């Protein structure tokens, strides 16, 4: 295990920038967000969690597939090369690290492989970052309920936590180990630091977020049974504006559109994030649309995460990061929906 002074974080950042693209939390007007770092001094670990999830490091908001000129032959179209520059995703909270595993099952672990997700995942080293256990969890968070510890190193390549003015860095994978060995300016951690690290990981596992225990199998079944109870869904979706912000900030929402954009003779076939909360998401060319009502779409979102995904892939597609609850303009809280469903 290694360590450095929290103040010297920019030294570490500068070294990572020498090796590849560094994506780290940056302070912005509205809050923190993961951004590609151009100046090592931008990296700021004094955040609770970012507004947007870090999924865009692997699954950007827009991804160009093919470029072409309108009116030219399909044979002249040029697929956009997938960038495979090494990248470092720095300062990811344990619940968000967990989201990558859930997305891996979907994008590269089952059925067809999404080359964009897979190649970026392979080229990226993840620096996980423990929540501060001395500060209570945000009221929206419920990752502990889903079995995710506030300081779980699993899934990261290097796991970081603060100890006073110092930052401890522990290699979790071989990739992380190799990287840390190459870094200069880090000092070896003491046995006392190691003890602190292990204790924090353990304490993190009993760290409290909102108190209810969710068991994937039983909640999945519960939602299957609740599907046809329209009054329940109408009630919980009563205030929903169908704005889709919950899906855009979500680390495990992966729905996307594939569309063509042309301007002045230049065209791009690209994918962009999409959301099951939008009414034309399921609008067919015949005019048929199975989800014209708001309650049907909110039901799709909740059931997909807590029921369908469990039955298909074996895991709940939610990590309890609380972003959707914090972002919702009308205070709809997915955890409260789960809680109410369990009481139905």
């Amino acid at each position: 295990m290694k360590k450095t002074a929290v103040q010297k974080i920019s030294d570490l950042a500068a070294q990572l920038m020498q090796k590849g693209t560094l994506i780290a939390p940056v302070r912005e007007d509205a809050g923190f967000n993961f951004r590609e770092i151009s100046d090592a001094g931008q990296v700021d670990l004094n955040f609770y969690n970012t507004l947007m999830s870090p999924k865009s490091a692997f699954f950007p908001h827009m991804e160009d597939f093919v470029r072409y000129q309108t009116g030219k032959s399909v044979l002249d179209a040029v697929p956009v090369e997938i960038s495979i520059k090494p990248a470092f995703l720095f300062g990811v909270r344990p619940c968000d690290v967990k989201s990558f595993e859930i997305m891996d099952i979907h994008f590269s672990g089952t059925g067809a492989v999404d080359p964009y997700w897979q190649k970026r995942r392979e080229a990226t080293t993840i620096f996980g970052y423990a929540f501060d256990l001395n500060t209570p969890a945000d009221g929206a968070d419920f990752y502990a309920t889903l079995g995710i510890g506030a300081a779980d190193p699993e899934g990261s390549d290097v796991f970081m936590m603060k100890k006073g003015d110092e930052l401890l860095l522990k290699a979790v994978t071989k990739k992380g180990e190799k990287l840390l060995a190459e870094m200069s300016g880090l000092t070896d951690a003491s046995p006392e630091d190691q003890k602190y690290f292990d204790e924090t990981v353990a304490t993190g596992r009993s760290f409290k977020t909102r108190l209810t225990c969710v068991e994937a199998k039983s909640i999945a079944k519960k939602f299957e049974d609740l599907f046809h109870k329209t009054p329940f869904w109408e009630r919980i979706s009563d205030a929903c504006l169908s704005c889709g912000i919950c899906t855009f900030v979500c680390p495990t929402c992966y729905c996307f559109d594939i569309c063509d954009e042309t301007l002045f003779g230049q065209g791009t076939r690209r994918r962009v994030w999409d959301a099951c909360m939008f009414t034309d998401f399921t609008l067919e060319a015949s005019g048929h649309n199975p989800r014209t009502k708001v309650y049907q779409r909110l039901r799709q979102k909740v059931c997909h995460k807590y029921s369908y995904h469990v039955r298909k892939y074996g895991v709940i597609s939610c990590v309890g990061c609380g972003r959707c609850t914090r972002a919702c303009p009308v205070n709809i809280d997915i955890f409260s929906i789960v809680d109410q469903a369990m009481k139905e």
Partner: protein
Amino acid sequence: MSSDNPYIPMPVEIIKIIDEVDTHDIKTFRFTFLNKADEKKFKYLPGQFAELSIYGKGESPIGIASSPTEQGYVEFTVQRAGAIVPGLVTAALHDMDEGAKIGLRGPLGNSWPIEFLEKKNIVVVGGGFAFTTLRSLINYMLYKDNRSRFGDITVIYGARTPGLLLYKDELAAWEKRDDIKTIITVDKGDENWKGREGFVPAVCKDAAPSPKNTVAVICGPPVMIKFTLPVFFELGFSKENILTSLEMRMKCGIGKCGRCNVGYKYVCSDGPVFSLAELEELPRDF
């Protein structure tokens, strides 16, 4: 062209266009692959579909209408969409001539379960425009090397008017064969129509196929399905032995984009073919 990227279409050329119906809004497009390697890779079974891809317009998921026993080309029967929702891709395709080049991604989805159908009698029930992948299945089963793998084949196919029947030449050829029983019906005939009149469910009831060792493969508009299913239940067909192909809006076609999600299934990659027993496991959300 990147061959390992499922989002990048393969280039194909239109080598034949057949105007199928008297309303001229349904055409069959025959494509040939411009790269031989793509043709080799495009191994499909009846019931699968592909994304027809036109740069500048978009992509449309369309069932494959040819049979894999036909070599050197692949066919899609496409309706010009746009009565309610603008159909950019289908309109552009309909405006193309032979020789035009577009993109193709596939084959996608599961297929009619050929192994399950083997050694069984097959009743194919089709309505209107939803006959395309059924035609692929019928031609596959009728292929000389395949015919003995299947029992009796009965086809019940209906359209609103005689002019709206697809694949008219093939229907006539099937009617002449003695290894397939072909029952064609229209809701309302015209002065030249000498065939049967009547709705598909009623015709199925008259035909009364035996459920013994028999699978019913049914595709058609929702209203036809709604009234045909009870007929087959009454005849004694089990839900495992009634198959259909589901439609849902799709984009990626490979189970990634989430759009065609119904319950724990993605229609594009887990389907589009489902048995009625499988469909009843899903929420009514399609």
